[in-house]
């Protein structure tokens, strides 16, 4: 009797469960569900890339992260863009800047159409800048629009943008990041973050979105036949959610995948197969030991310098990352950029000398806390060993990332191991110990403000170099390593992948530049 009931309920449950997911299969995809064109003679070229859910790819709804931005960037264009060398014209074919660096004019191409057939005009550009300035989003561009005073159309195809003060990063951080919206779609939208209609993903970009599935983390993009830079060389770009990217590559579930840092072992294994091409690039990321410079003992530069002597960074790179990283620049900025200063002072690893120093200073009794997340527990363990070898008493505490972030923000720590990206962009130097803000140095702040306004690139570089020198001497943080990054891909399907100079937009390192999918 009991078994029969169980059996029946089991069957009922199974039927219910399977039918429960039917409605979605019947419902058509959100936008143009047109079937593949039968006129196409050859097999359509689909590129599959591992991914996850990064939000609806409208300029206001994607999750405020690099991958979210890339999902949006296939659909929308910016005034300028970047290739492997640097900034290139995009929607704007030409631009000028006044001598004082506050007045920019852009000449907008006249042959660009939005995906609904409407032309993209200066009106749309003016509207977009004003609209982004008016509406809050969590993405970075609020900061980059802060210095914008006004935007106006000055001719049939000319747009003038005036700034409150010179802003050295304007071309890269603002003009190269802010997507241009179709005014006719967005002008009546009141809460853009909640505007998730199919029209919200109509831009001028090289691809149109044909499917987005939040639960399955799936994005399907189809080539925009009328793209002003030419039709993309692939027909479809699909993002698939996978748990193990190496397995996904091996089984052909995806055609390319990105790896970094400690994943070097997987890369080596896959490389020895010989099936995949390997492209190495910079991750623009740094792992650093953050000092609480507001409290003793790390409020003194000589104590921090002694810590730098005590820690064997090369050893951490070898032991923990197996060579998947390089020893970090003491000035934070990625060595793979034009901003990198190669002539910084160094600290030779010397346990004995550091030990004498700490003993003389009487710092060997007070226990110090070192906080980190589980991801960097091994690095933290090695730092702890090195510091204990010179006589310091270290208490290691791990927490989830938001907790560690919050402790850093509140200044509730002695030492922390924390990492972040964005180090291709000098604006990252604003707060060297981010997300903490314990480091105070007037000279540093003055230099930073000067470089932020230095429109002349040479002058700016000079100032950014000085900032790095100051960092290497003062050591508010001790940068540990920069991970290496690799793209493994099936070259027989597509071999135009590349790493963007300084990363896309404000510094997104992943090699998903839309230019890789376009004729060149």
């Amino acid at each position: 009797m009991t078994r029969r009931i169980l059996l029946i309920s089991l069957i009922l449950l199974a039927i219910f469960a399977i039918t429960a997911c039917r409605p979605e299969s019947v419902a058509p995809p959100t936008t143009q569900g047109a079937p593949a064109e039968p006129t196409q003679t050859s097999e359509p070229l689909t590129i599959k890339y591992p991914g996850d859910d990064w939000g609806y790819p409208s300029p206001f709804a994607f999750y405020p992260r690099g991958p979210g931005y890339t999902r949006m960037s296939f659909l929308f264009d910016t005034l300028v863009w970047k290739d492997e060398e640097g900034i290139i014209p995009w929607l704007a074919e030409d631009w000028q800047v006044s001598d004082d660096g506050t007045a920019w004019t852009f000449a907008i191409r006249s042959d660009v159409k939005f995906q609904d057939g409407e032309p993209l005009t200066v009106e749309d550009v003016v509207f977009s800048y004003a609209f982004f300035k008016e509406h809050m989003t969590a993405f970075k561009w609020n900061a980059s629009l802060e210095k914008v005073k006004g935007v106006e159309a000055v001719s049939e195809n000319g747009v003038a943008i005036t700034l409150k003060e010179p802003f050295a990063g304007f071309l890269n951080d603002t003009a190269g990041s802010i997507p241009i919206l179709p005014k006719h779609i967005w002008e009546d939208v009141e809460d853009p973050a909640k505007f998730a209609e199919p029209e919200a993903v109509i831009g001028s970009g090289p691809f149109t979105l044909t499917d987005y599935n939040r639960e399955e983390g799936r994005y399907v993009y189809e080539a925009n036949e009328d793209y002003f830079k030419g039709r993309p060389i692939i027909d479809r770009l699909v993002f698939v959610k996978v748990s193990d990217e190496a397995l996904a590559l091996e089984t052909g579930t995806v055609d390319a995948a990105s790896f970094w840092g400690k994943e070097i072992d997987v890369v080596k294994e896959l490389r020895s197969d010989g099936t995949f091409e390997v492209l190495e690039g910079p991750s623009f990321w740094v792992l650093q030991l953050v000092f609480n410079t507001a409290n003793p003992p790390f409020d003194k530069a000589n104590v921090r310098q002694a810590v730098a002597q005590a820690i064997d960074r090369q050893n951490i790179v070898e032991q923990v990352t197996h060579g998947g990283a390089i020893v970090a620049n003491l000035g934070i900025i990625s060595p793979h950029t034009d901003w990198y200063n190669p002539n910084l002072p160094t600290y030779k690893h010397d346990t004995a000398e550091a030990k004498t120093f700490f003993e003389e200073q009487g710092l060997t009794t007070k226990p110090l806390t070192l906080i980190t997340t589980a991801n960097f527990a091994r690095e933290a363990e090695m730092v702890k060993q090195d510091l204990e070898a010179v006589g310091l008493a270290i208490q290691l505490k791990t927490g989830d990332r938001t907790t560690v972030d919050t402790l850093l923000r509140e200044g509730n720590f002695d030492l922390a191991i924390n990492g972040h990206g964005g180090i291709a962009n000098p604006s990252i130097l604003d707060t060297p110990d981010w997300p903490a803000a314990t480091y105070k140095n007037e000279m540093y702040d003055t230099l930073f403000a000067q470089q932020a306004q230095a429109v002349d690139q040479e002058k700016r570089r000079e100032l950014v170099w000085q900032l790095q020198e100051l960092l290497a001497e003062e050591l508010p943080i001790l940068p540990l390593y920069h991970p290496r990054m690799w793209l493994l891909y099936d070259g027989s399907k597509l071999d135009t992948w590349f790493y963007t100079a300084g990363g896309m937009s404000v510094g997104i390192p992943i090699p998903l530049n839309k230019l890789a999918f376009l004729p060149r």
Partner: protein
Amino acid sequence: MQIVQYLITMIIVLSLNFFLPRMIPGDPLTVLEGDPSTDMPMLLTEEARAKLLTYYGLDKPLLAQYKDYLLKMAQGDLGWSIYYNVPVTSLLWGRLKWTLLLMGIATAVYTALGILLGTVSAWYRGSKTDLGLLGGVFALGSWPSFFLAMLLIIAFSVKLDLFPIGGVGNATGEYSSALGRTLDVTYHLFLPCVALVLSHLPSVYLVMRNSLLSVLGQDYIRTAKAKGLRERFILWRHALPNGLLPVITMIAMHFGLLITGTISVEVVFSYPGMGTLLHEAFRARDYPVLQGAFLLIMITVLFFNLLAEFLYARLDPRTRRRWTNA
């Protein structure tokens, strides 16, 4: 009385759902500001931060927020997710349907199988079948579910190439027919389901076996045997109803937690579900999502508790008194 008890529990849990997420360090904006472990930092200016706090209603005093929360809950409005930027109900439902599909089938299978095997084992206690089952189940039970899941993937997906490595359907999500999709979804469901069944089966089996063994050793069973009743009859009518009681308690608990999903299996098979959603929402300190998900869990747990009490009363007349007293 029973109803009042359940109501009080609900109010306490509702309040905990509100206050607990807010007591963990950090707030939803911490994550919006950038994820230092994977990405570039996004520095929010004080002004921008204040604007966002106002936008999400997080600048109000805590008690005012609590009042808003209770009022909205009363209207069935779970709010808008801060990180995912969608209504919480649609977010939850999107995940819940996959969790129910996977966990529902797996739970039904491992419960039925566990009871069946446990009964067989107890009935033929000491035989080769019993010892074989016991050994096999112990071996299974000693492996964590994510490990079992990975073994299954390596064996059946990578080496034998029989099943997909994960997901719920094909890469593009395009199917020629609804039947094609249903079949493909079932095909994708197979391995995660097997992993769940294998990892949960041991507990049900062991409880069933032990409980039935202790029942079979009792006097009334001996009496029944002495009366000359058929063995099958003794098992079905005398032993099983009593032997099932601990199993029902356990299954009610399993079912209550059914909708929280199983994060390890979800992660290994990149299967969408409540487990990963809860984890992500916690990481992002997405208060509305956490509140909504906890509410859902609370309702399920309370419902299955009620159901278990009801079933108990049916199986064991002695527990009925509680109901009549109330």
